[in-house]
């Protein structure tokens, strides 16, 4: 029935955040609970689900570049081999260990937050940032070296070899993939900085340390991307080259 015929009584007083079910607003809830959620649990589950969904979008984001990589690797195996040989496997391998190590320190950091060990949390997070920055510095050296050799695709590209044109495509994808990854690392370090500051300010308790957890998820994801990128870019045809 259309009820437009009913006049509203003067409705509410000042718009108060009306309480839920139990009625009345008390501030006995956790200070971190946002008002549109009913319980801390609901908020935590929503936040975690949100981060996982975001990571799915990141998979699709890298996926486009990986599809291009897949196509051209099938088309130009020799160029892929030659291009991969130009990458420094020692530095790349070192970086892989650094990043995996940083995921370990991150996991310890989340654990420390979970058990309320505030100082340990800060230490583990700082270590994680340190390792992340180490990764970026090494990457910077690698890029610089490539620039010196004129291996950066574009007008100044120069490469000796029969497959130079397709090696340029390989290197385009190398810079695209590792560049995108490095961008995510930089953002990750910045996020870690904020989380570390919050930990320092004693914001986290065993009841609520969601930001640490979410940052951890993001950090692990960026690590996993590298674990794919390292063999795909640095280890193409290495067995044949080493033998």
């Amino acid at each position, binding site marked *: *029935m*259309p009820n437009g015929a009913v006049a509203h009584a003067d409705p509410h007083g000042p718009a108060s955040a009306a309480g839920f079910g139990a009625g009345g607003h008390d501030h006995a809830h956790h200070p971190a609970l946002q008002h549109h959620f009913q319980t801390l649990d609901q908020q935590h589950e929503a936040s975690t689900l949100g981060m996982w969904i975001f990571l799915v979008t990141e998979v699709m984001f890298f996926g486009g570049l990986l599809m291009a990589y897949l196509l051209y690797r099938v088309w*130009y195996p*020799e160029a892929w081999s030659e291009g991969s040989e130009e990458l420094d496997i020692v530095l790349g391998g070192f970086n892989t260990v650094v990043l995996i190590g940083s995921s370990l320190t991150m996991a310890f950091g989340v654990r420390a937050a979970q058990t309320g060990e505030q100082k340990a949390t800060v230490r583990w997070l700082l270590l994680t940032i340190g390792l992340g920055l180490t990764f970026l510095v090494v990457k910077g050296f690698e890029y610089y070296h490539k620039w010196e050799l004129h291996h950066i695709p574009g007008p100044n590209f120069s490469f000796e070899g*029969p*497959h130079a*044109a397709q090696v340029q495509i390989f290197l385009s994808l190398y810079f695209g993939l590792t560049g995108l990854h490095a961008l995510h690392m930089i953002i990750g370090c910045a996020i870690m900085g904020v989380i570390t500051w919050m930990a320092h300010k004693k914001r986290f308790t065993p009841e609520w340390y969601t930001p640490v957890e979410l940052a951890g998820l993001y950090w692990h994801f960026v690590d996993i991307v590298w674990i794919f990128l390292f063999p795909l870019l640095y280890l193409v045809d290495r067995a044949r080259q080493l033998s």
Partner: protein
Amino acid sequence: MLSGIPLFPEQASTLAPEVDNLYFFITAVTAFFALLVVVFVTVFAIKYRDRTGTKVGEPIHGSIPLEIGWSLIPFLITMVIFAWATVVFFQIVRAPDQTLEVYSTGKRWMWRFQHIDGKSEINELHVPLGRPVKVVFTSEDVLHSLYVPAFRVKADAIPGRYSSIWFTPTKTGEFHLFCAEYCGTNHSGMIGKVVVMEPNEYQAWLSGDTGLPMAARGEQLFQQLGCVSCHLPDGAGRGPSLLGKFGGQETLGDGTVVAVDDVYVRESILAPQQKLVAGYQPLMPTFQGQVNEEGVMSLIEYIKTLPSTGQPAAAAQARTAPAPAAQGGSR
């Protein structure tokens, strides 16, 4: 005035009625279902109208048999359409074995057609009535698309690749030729016409001022670019002999076997290291930049003429196009 408005394109090729019949079928089927739904919606909207807005409808939640029915039946109908359409599609993309070949390149903003015997045209394509014609083409710059509505054929012209369309004209006359892939400023000006002539008129047109046959042009390039210095006829040079190779197969260094068709020859000229023949060193330089797409097509035509035994044929001899048995269709 109404009679002057065209509402349906001419059918000017053997493919056109096939495509149109499919079109009529799909139109009939979709019109039937569209009408069905429109009638039901109209009847229900009027019959069950409640102007007061106070009544309530009958709370019918659904019917599994109906759901299955109206899922399955449309699916089956679409499968019939799919099957028919696929059959027609394969007719469109599979040229017959014997076709009259014409090469073409599209570039902003014109189509250049190169007949094998040497005649070349811009934005016009003369073809004889009643014979299958295959146009092999590429683009020199951006994507284009060669489209002849009256023949119901179209394919994109992609830089770096060969595409082809084929048709057998069934009517004489002039028919629109359009570029159908946006290519910049003068995209809508990249148009022309296909001129279909009676066979004897076509012969007469052909024998007019022709210029060098493509194969002869190809032979010239073969000398000028130095191909002849490595590709010795006895196979003892730095590159393999090309005698009789076209249309056959080659084994590559990694063991794979490739067909020696126009695509392979073009690739071997422009990116020779990609698919190297077994037993030969990677010495051939790329000729990208030294020969344009039309030159490549001429070289392909020349290589087609090289017989498998003895000396290369005197390819300087002008070849007239209507001798399909001698030329052979390309793959």
